[in-house]
């Protein structure tokens, strides 16, 4: 409530501007000064801006999702059935395979978020607070894990451990590994590995804002290492809870693992059941919508835990007084354990999928001979028609990432104001959107923006690139905001106020006081969105403008038309390109950004 009150302008701002009230010049001849004051009232603009922002969120996220979800109780609304109101579809999700899949999805996602935390926090700490050899490569490798579409690691694992897979063909006869990976354990492991980068990003952003002074204070008062940790972990609570929430929501909405490894393991997950409803013919959108409701409802659990953990606390620790943290030298035993953790993680998260993708793309005969050949790559570069779609996806990715980061930053700002009703609503809205699979967004966008009434008004957005990019933005923004909220929560207003006190304008004060501290998290959020869009499939399939296919559709076209090797080679090329862009962006940041921007939160050697 306190924050809500702060949203209101001070009483003076509610007074009519001079010249507009009862004492206004009745001849209407405003002088220049009065006109200027009318033109820009910061408080009014802030409120107008916020209203516009909420309207934008409603149009981008609420309307399409609501249109889709409403079908669960009113199929006739969009011609998907004869009933105006029914509860039969909602009742249906609590029976049979769908009910089992929902329970599976919930516990699997919780476990995956836990794995993400257990592995991600130590790696983030090692990369940011120690002198671990090779720590500079950790961020890049994390990006590679994020860039990979989730079906790629799953296919890699399948290729390795399935009966008559590579493991058996090289003489390693370990059926217990096959049954473990091709079952719930494998599903949790894969989803957990995918949660690690999200934890790493949020914790890294938070650690960079956490100066040495807190640890020093604890040590000064006689705290040991564990006691210091007990002090620091609560300060990182927004980032930790954010990582749990996003890990859970990303896992519960994942389709890549659900459609590959989980499917092959006869371990049904909710997203696959939702897909089966949409992919059948005729599709059952109401049935899919009913599952969608439960997915949305499922994010209430991590959100409630988060609200409980953060209630009544403030996390603004990054100010002008923050001191660089010390990078510690690890003991030999600690070094060994750390290297095992980091190398082990990346071997499993990158090595196996890399092997799967590369081996598929280097074999021309469905893997019969294990004889590598470049024939698929030659086909890609000679005549696969990939260059146009890839170029298109690059542009879509650039636009989407830029707009999404701007909007995601605003969302993160609102989310960081704990205790406000609007912040809580936004939190739920964004996380619910993360929990919904892309196909829900895609179909929802068709229902919402292809209404006959809109066409009669001359507003035909469906099958335009505009709607596709808007949908990309809407689907990326929730994750983006979640990644940024940890860093934004730590910004102390004193950073900006100091600049204001020295006469800087509001914009300049933000640019000089806050932007340096947020530049790296913003760049990371931009890259995260860009990488996600480059190979995004469900939205692209349903919404792309005919004649302008993006890269993922072109690749899927080959995978679905028996050209499996060429399709995989195309995926490898696209992932390589995404990684090149990530490297380029990080390189430009290193070269162009002022020295201070690059070293905010960076530790100094012990």
């Amino acid at each position: 409530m306190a924050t809500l009150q702060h949203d209101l302008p001070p009483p003076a701002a509610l007074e009519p501007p001079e010249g507009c009230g009862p004492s206004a010049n009745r001849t209407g001849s405003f002088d220049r000064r009065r006109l200027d004051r009318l033109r820009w009232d910061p408080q009014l603009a802030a409120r107008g801006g916020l209203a516009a922002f909420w309207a934008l969120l409603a149009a981008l996220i609420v309307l399409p999702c609501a249109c889709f979800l409403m079908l669960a109780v009113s199929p006739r609304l969009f011609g998907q059935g004869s009933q105006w109101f029914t509860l039969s579809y909602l009742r249906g999700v609590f029976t049979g395979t769908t009910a089992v899949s929902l329970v599976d999805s919930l516990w699997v996602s919780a476990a995956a978020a836990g794995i993400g935390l257990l592995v991600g926090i130590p790696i983030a700490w090692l990369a940011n607070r120690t002198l671990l050899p090779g720590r500079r490569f950790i961020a890049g490798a994390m990006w590679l894990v994020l860039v990979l579409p989730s079906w790629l690691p799953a296919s890699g694992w399948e290729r390795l451990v399935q009966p008559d897979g590579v493991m058996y063909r090289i003489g390693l006869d370990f059926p217990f590994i096959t049954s473990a990976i091709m079952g719930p354990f494998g599903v949790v492991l894969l989803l957990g590995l995918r949660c690690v980068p999200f934890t790493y990003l949020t914790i890294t952003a938070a650690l960079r804002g956490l100066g040495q002074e807190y640890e020093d204070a604890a040590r000064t008062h006689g705290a040991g290492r564990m006691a210091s940790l007990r002090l620091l972990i609560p300060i990182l609570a927004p980032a930790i809870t954010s990582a749990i929430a996003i890990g859970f929501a990303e896992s519960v909405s994942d389709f890549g693992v659900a459609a590959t490894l989980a499917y092959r393991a006869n371990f049904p997950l909710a997203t696959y059941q939702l897909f089966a409803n949409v992919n059948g013919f005729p599709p059952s959108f109401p049935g899919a919508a009913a599952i969608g409701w439960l997915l949305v409802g499922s994010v209430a659990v991590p959100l409630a835990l988060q609200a409980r953990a953060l209630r009544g606390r403030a996390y603004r620790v990054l100010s002008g007084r923050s001191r660089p943290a010390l990078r510690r030298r690890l003991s030999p035993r600690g070094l060994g354990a750390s290297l095992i953790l980091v190398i082990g993680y990346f071997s499993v998260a990158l090595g196996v999928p890399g092997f799967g993708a590369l081996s598929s793309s280097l074999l021309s005969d469905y893997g019969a001979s294990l004889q590598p050949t470049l024939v698929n790559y030659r086909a890609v570069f000679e005549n696969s028609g990939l260059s146009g779609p890839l170029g298109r996806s690059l542009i879509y990715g650039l636009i989407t990432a830029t707009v999404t980061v701007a909007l995601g930053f605003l969302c993160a700002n609102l989310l960081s104001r704990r205790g406000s009703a609007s912040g809580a609503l936004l939190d739920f809205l964004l996380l619910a959107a993360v929990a919904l699979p892309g196909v829900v967004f895609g179909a929802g966008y068709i229902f919402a923006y292809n209404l006959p009434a809109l066409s009669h008004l001359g507003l035909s957005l469906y099958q335009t690139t505009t709607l596709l990019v808007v949908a990309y933005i809407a689907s990326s923004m929730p994750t983006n905001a979640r990644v940024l909220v940890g860093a934004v929560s730590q910004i102390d207003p004193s950073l900006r106020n100091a600049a204001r006190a020295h006469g800087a304008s509001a914009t300049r004060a933000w640019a000089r006081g806050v932007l340096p501290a947020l530049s790296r998290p913003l760049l990371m959020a931009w890259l995260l969105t860009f990488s996600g869009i480059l190979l995004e499939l469900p939205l692209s399939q349903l919404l792309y403008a005919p004649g302008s296919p993006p890269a993922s559709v072109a690749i899927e076209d080959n995978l679905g038309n028996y050209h499996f090797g060429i399709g995989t080679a195309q995926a490898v090329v696209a992932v390589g390109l995404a990684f090149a862009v990530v490297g380029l962006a990080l390189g430009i940041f290193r070269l162009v950004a002022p020295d201070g921007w690059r070293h905010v939160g960076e530790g100094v050697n012990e």
Partner: protein
Amino acid sequence: MHAHAQVSPDSRRPRGRYVLAGAAVATVALAGVQATATAQRTPKAGVVPLVVYSAQGYDKLETEDFSKKYHIPVQLNDNSTGPLLTEIEASKNNPKWGLLWVDGATAFAELDDQHLLVRGFEPNVHWNSLGKAALPADKSYVPTGVTLMAIMAYNKQKVAHPPRSWQALLSAKWRGQVGMNDPSQSGPTYPFIAGIMQNLGGIAKGKTYFSKLKANGLVVNPTNGPTLAALASGQINLALVQSSAGIGAYFSDHNIAVKYLNPVTILPSVIGIDAKAPAQEQKEAELFASYVLSRAGQKVMKTGDPTGDSLYYPVLSGIAPRGILPPLSGVKTQSINPYVWGPKENAINSWFDSSIVK
């Protein structure tokens, strides 16, 4: 730790500017994208762009040739069958497609039952027996070629004497060696299951057959590609897949051979026209269907995807299939009535998923 954060009024002030700036960035970016899209969609005078939804491997070449010949712009939505049908159903109150071209007639029968297809159109061509068998009575769709579902692909190095009948697949000799696709992920697989059920005399008998096949160690993969990969790796020795996929696999692995088991169900590739499209677009769609069935159009179909969809049997007299396709003489083919089997698709696929895949 402070219980409440201090928020100075000043710290809130610029937010409106940021929102406006963000909105401006979004507007400019999207306006740019829209301008590009609008420029791409501007049709020539007298014609409207023909929007083609297709899952065929040769569709890009076919639409380009058609455009060149008739000066009609074509906007191609080249996608998998599943997303195309999802899009059509989601947009049926305000459809934006003009022509749909995918494998399998059951989906078209469903669309016809919903009055979403133009009826009564038949190109002026000479059908062969396959074409006549695939043509619907109300002429709501047009067959353009035929593949078979399923044929049996096997590794001739490992299998010297492949089974000769569907019943033989149930014998202990082939335990754990047979693989097929999942109908809920592979569109062409449902007609195969329906064909087996029809041939055996009904759904119940068909279910018994597939249950026995499962008891004999049937391996179910999502689609043709993974099933053929399982064959290549030796996980299975007999793969029940679409004829174009099985024959196409020979190009990458010369040890793969195919055998047709009687009866084999024909799977037509089909064109349907949107009943709600503008009249001009419907005319253009009819022209496109006629072009596909012309000699020039058939040439593109036969050459456009030589290791994939071009491996089809023509539906026209005087047009021969590609030389690599085995002749159909001596093979008993059957058609399933899509209007009978189409409405049963979801129920049978659900049964297959819950009883056979699991």
